[in-house]
């Protein structure tokens, strides 16, 4: 190799290190922005599991497939602290809870409960929930046809019960 091409290789190396260093710096800086963790209580009187008449078999499904984003308590994976994974999770949880928070079931009015019960069946049977991206990592959260049928049968029955119940 002549001197000229050695100089050229050094230039490329230097540039590569610079870019890698910059990426590393950005990733490190990203870690300083941390969404608030969702680590509240779910064993409360207001929680769906207590406040509704959901049977144990279904309660287990809801806990396993829905509660990470639709309650006050998320079971975080090991990378739950690392940005950008933590950001994506934070957004899913925030949006999930805005639509339905099982932890505040007890303080919803009748219409809100009926609306949620109707949508629970709709989202599950339409394949919209659990989210595809969630299922990629949580294989066991997937719902089979029998589970979906059980959810829909129960939620419709519960909606009727809420409808005819007194205040």
């Amino acid at each position, binding site marked *: 190799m002549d001197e000229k091409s050695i100089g050229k290789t050094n230039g490329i190396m230097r540039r590569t290190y610079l870019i890698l260093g910059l990426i590393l710096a950005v990733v490190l800086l990203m870690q300083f922005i941390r969404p608030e963790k969702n680590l509240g209580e779910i064993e409360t009187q207001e929680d769906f599991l207590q406040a509704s008449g959901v049977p144990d078999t279904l309660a287990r499904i809801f806990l396993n497939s829905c509660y990470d984003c639709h309650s006050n308590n998320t079971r975080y994976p090991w990378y739950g602290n690392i940005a950008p994974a933590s950001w994506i999770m934070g957004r899913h949880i925030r949006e999930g809870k805005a639509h339905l928070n099982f932890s505040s079931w007890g303080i919803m009015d*009748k*219409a*809100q409960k*009926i*609306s949620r*019960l*109707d*949508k629970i069946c709709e989202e599950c049977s339409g394949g919209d929930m659990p989210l595809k991206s969630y299922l990629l990592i949580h294989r066991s959260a997937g719902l089979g046809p029998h589970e979906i049928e059980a959810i829909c049968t129960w939620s*419709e029955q519960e*909606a*009727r019960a809420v*409808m*005819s119940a007194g205040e």
Partner: protein
Amino acid sequence: MKIRFWSILPVAMIILAAAFLSWRDIQKGSEIPEDVLTILSTHCYTCHTTGARSEDALKKVDFKKWDEYNDVKKIGILNDIKEVAEKGEMPPAKYLSRNPDKALSAEDRETLIEWTKKASAKLME
């Protein structure tokens, strides 16, 4: 020219009759009061009646099918209307940027919210 006019007339009449019948369908039978209907038809029907382009919007609610929904579904939709009216989520901001005249006034929202409360209470009687 004359012949052509007379051949178009029956077609035109059928179209008009169909339009009238479907319009009357939306109006009659629904327990939706007049003032609410006016708001819904002005601000919501573009996307939320049969024939609209967005499948997603129709899946949420198709006002043309209101009478076909069962009570649970109706209460669910009424609750959705109440929530989006309260939060100002509908019509969507993206749509409003192109159609600013479609925005709901505070008064419109109040009318909708009051109606949803009354209507769902009635359904739960």
